[in-house]
């Protein structure tokens, strides 16, 4: 594996930096925070963002119920399923001509800072299985792959590193990777793949307890914890001192030193949400997701390069609304609206928004009657999908059936804020008739990734070598950044 062709952030510089870090020079860690910009040496693409917050809405968020509202069709007992468009009225926002769905009133106030992309086109993989689309969203590659594909956060971590030498480059908030019933596929979507565990995510499944990740294990005093390091150092240095040349075994010691610096780094303080002023904490605190947004802001401030905040994927829960879609969506909107808007406001107020790209995305959207896409060429698969997907009655007897309950991959909505993105616009267009297919300017998965990479100054055809061949950050290097989205 090697850096294949990346002309941007100088690899030489980065290696130099790593070597210094490898020598354990504490100097890099001391003093005020000097954050490294996205690309150190003259890059071909001028970065417009130094950091990314990637907000992932797990389970398939219905575009028509959130960022791309359609005609409001209120519930009446006995109404036809085919009559259901949006189950919410739309509301105007601070961006002229950009309406979003009701119960997102706080977000409506910040939309002038961002763009809605209505024409996101999830990949076509036949049957819309979550794990496949989650993998696709995170890696830009459709599974299965013959080599272990790295997730976007890992690619960014490998390419640019952290903005502060002592903090992790990539932090992954809110998605548990180990709980019963969840599959190994989720782990692969969040994995560093062939880049190796050094570029993997620093995982914070629950933001409320994030500080534990850099604290002594439970029941261990800070003194005892520090004492362990002192003792280890005493034993270790004896051996290291005897060595004159670079010794592979010292890598472990260096890594422990790095972990110890991390524990005392700005990121460690950022992980401790109890340090956040009460008022601000409460502004975010709608639960796990809300605190995840707060943590993301704190981490970006401390020098993390790439933060993912998941509204966790948990089968049949969260945005995976197979029943009671309307009611459940109200609750979830209440959970996301305030903290997401606060995140944008805070970043703006701290003058970080202009260099921080915030993306809100989901693996696919939802529709009332269509599973997958309408134009699936395979009749056998169409029949299979209709047979196996959630049953939608022809007429809705009760509110349990009122909502968009099927997996729809024909179109989806994204939000993008800051980091060079134009504010106050809606990009692309979907039909006003169900299932709301794209009619203008589709943004494919490679295009979405290319756009994020472009903001960071990373070309879409950057590649890393694995097994003697180049692995591009977008398939075949062909992702096209959406230029119109940039200011």
């Amino acid at each position, binding site marked *: 594996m090697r850096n294949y062709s990346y002309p941007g952030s100088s690899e030489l510089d980065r290696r130099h930096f790593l070597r210094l870090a490898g020598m354990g020079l504490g100097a890099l860690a001391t003093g005020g925070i000097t954050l490294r910009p996205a690309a150190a040496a003259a890059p071909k693409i001028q970065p417009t963002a130094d950091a990314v917050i990637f907000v992932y809405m797990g389970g398939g968020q219905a575009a028509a119920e959130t960022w791309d509202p359609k005609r409001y069709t209120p519930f009446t007992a006995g109404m036809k399923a085919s009559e259901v468009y949006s189950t919410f009225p739309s509301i105007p926002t601070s961006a002229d001509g950009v309406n979003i769905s009701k119960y997102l009133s706080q977000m409506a106030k910040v939309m002038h800072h961002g763009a809605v992309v209505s024409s996101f086109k999830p990949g076509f993989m036949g049957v819309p299985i979550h794990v496949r689309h989650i993998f696709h969203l995170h890696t830009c590659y459709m599974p299965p792959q013959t080599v272990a594909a790295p997730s976007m956060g890992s690619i960014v971590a490998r390419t640019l590193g952290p903005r502060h030498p002592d903090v992790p480059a990539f932090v992954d908030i809110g998605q548990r990777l180990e709980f019963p019933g969840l599959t190994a596929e989720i*782990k692969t979507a969040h994995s560093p793949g062939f880049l190796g565990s050094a570029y993997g995510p620093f995982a914070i499944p629950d933001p409320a307890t994030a500080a534990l*990740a850099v604290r002594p294990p439970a029941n261990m005093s800070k003194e005892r914890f520090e004492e362990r390091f002192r003792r280890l150092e005493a034993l270790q240095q004896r051996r290291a001192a005897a060595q004159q040349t670079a010794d592979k075994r010292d890598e472990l010691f260096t890594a422990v030193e790095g972990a110890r610096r991390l524990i005392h780094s700005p990121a460690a303080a950022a992980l401790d949400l109890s340090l956040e002023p009460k008022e601000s904490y409460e502004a975010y605190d709608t639960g796990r997701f809300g605190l995840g947004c707060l943590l993301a802001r704190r981490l970006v401030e401390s020098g993390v390069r790439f933060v993912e905040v998941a509204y966790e994927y948990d089968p049949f829960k969260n945005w995976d609304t197979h029943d009671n879609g309307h009611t459940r969506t109200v609750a979830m909107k209440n959970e996301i609206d305030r903290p997401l808007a606060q995140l944008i406001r805070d970043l703006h107020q701290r003058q970080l928004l202009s260099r921080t790209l915030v993306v809100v995305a989901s693996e696919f959207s939802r529709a009332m009657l269509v599973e997958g896409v309408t134009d699936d060429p395979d009749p056998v698969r169409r029949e299979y999908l209709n047979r196996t997907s959630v049953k939608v009655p022809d007429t809705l007897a009760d509110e349990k059936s009122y909502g968009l309950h099927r997996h729809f991959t024909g179109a989806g909505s994204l939000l993008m804020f800051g980091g060079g993105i134009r504010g106050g616009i809606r990009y692309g267009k979907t039909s006003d008739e169900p299932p709301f297919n794209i009619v203008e300017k589709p943004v494919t998965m490679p295009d979405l990734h290319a756009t994020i990479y472009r903001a960071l100054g990373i070309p879409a055809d950057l590649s890393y070598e694995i097994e003697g061949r180049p692995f591009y950050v977008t398939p075949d290097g062909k992702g096209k950044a959406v230029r119109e989205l940039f200011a």
Partner: protein
Amino acid sequence: MTFRRGLIALGVLLVASVMPAAPPPAAPAVGQPAAPLHINTDSAKKDPTPDWRTRVRRELAELMPPTAPAGAGNPVDALLDSWRKKQKQLLPPANPCDDRVFLRRASLDLVGLLPDEKQVEAFAADHSPTKRTALVQRLLADRTAYAEHWMTFWNDLLRNDEAAWIEINHPPITAWLFKSLSDNKPYDLFAAELINPGPQGPVGFIQGVDWKFATSASETPPMQAARSVAQVFQGVNLKCASCHNHFTRPWKLDDAWALAGCFSTTPLESQRCDRPTGRIVGPRFLFAGLGEIPADVPVAKRREVVATMVTRPRNPRFAKVIVNRLFKQLFGQGIIDQVDDFDGSPGFMPELLDYLAYDFAMHDYDLKHTLELLATSNAYQMQAVATVRSAVRDDAVKGDAEPPFVGLRVKRMTAEQFSDAVSKLTGSWRRAELAKAEVPNLQPRAWRFRDTDSLAAALGRPSRDVIQSGRPDGASVLQALELINGDVLRDHLTTAAQWMLSGPLGQQADIANVVDTICLRAYCRHATPAEVQQGRELLGTPAAAAADRQAGWEDFLWLVVMRAEFQYIE
């Protein structure tokens, strides 16, 4: 018979790697009749397939062996010495490692476990000049420990996994694999059963993953079978060629599809990047000259023919690929370091590869024989080289150039070795959900854990949706954090401290002796004064308060396992 003549005759094992430009690579010419073979009659008696073995031996007899290097010593050393003399740059002289390093190295490399303090003392007290050889033989004779250790390697390579996947539901081959390893099944039979398993056999490997619904054409089960067989047994990477002609290797699109045709119930039309080409190709094997594959027979019959073509002695790659993998497991570097790609570099010393491959075949494809040959060489008994080798390997090495061979390298423990080492050191074996495979109910060594916990993931246990032929051996901050304050190691050490305190070591008042025992188990050497001092400060005598002792023991054990001397195989 000269060494050179032997090599020409053994062109078998060379043609494809030195002349990759002529696809499909021609099979080698048959060598001149050779001297009568030495047949290992012991294994002949045990071999359950006399017809197979007779045929293989007859074919081997038709090949001329590379001449064994002169001298009475281990041929591996003779060959390496001759190679070393030819190097322009003099390599730094290697010094033999001491006994305790050797004991620890051989134990971890061959059975994946640390020796206990009694074994360390006994080995030190043994003055027999052949004790190292005897040790290697004793380790390899421990069928169960050997099998448990090598399960990790083979599970990675054969992508056998019992973790919960939605889409990957191919039947695990764990039980078959475990039995094959503990029986030390001859490797040609082992491979043949994987390629042509029969209904009761290890079907998971060749069946691959039947991905639900649409996937790219290159992921159909027959193509997966072709890719797996090519990569694992032939050192041929067909991943690129399953979509288009390979850019830097001799493999064409149709070579991959022709091999896939061997595993398909229906004739296959090749597809270039998911577009049908209109050509029905194959069934055909990678290398010509090894026989024909009939198209009009059931797929089981075709698999049987492929199994023979892959494993027969005249196949250029089969033996070389596996002995190279074994070499890398022991020495930390392959003769061809890119162990899955034999179409690039011929290796730092092709003659050594040829010798090992031929010798392996001559010993009825006995994996333990080759491991013994390697582990009893002087080269394996030298002090390990610890120079840093960049994880980004090509910083120093471009293209197909082989990284310089400097001797046996210091290796990092795998996730499984580390977990088992902590268990063995403390006597407290971790509990976790086990793979369901029906294997003997033994101490739960970490290979059996069904899921990859956060510590195992940080230490490099891979997700097995793709073939993995090696583990990373670098250290990272995220890894260190997991070791410093992760739940998995913390819980293990908490339980371990409780266990040890309630056992004989916990009752001892002589702390120096306790520390010494722990160091013997962890590092195979006696404690240093510094370690004894730390022990005195942390472990406390049986008279001390129970809570203090518990914490002190946890801290001490943590210190022990966090040392590089513990986590590396020197």
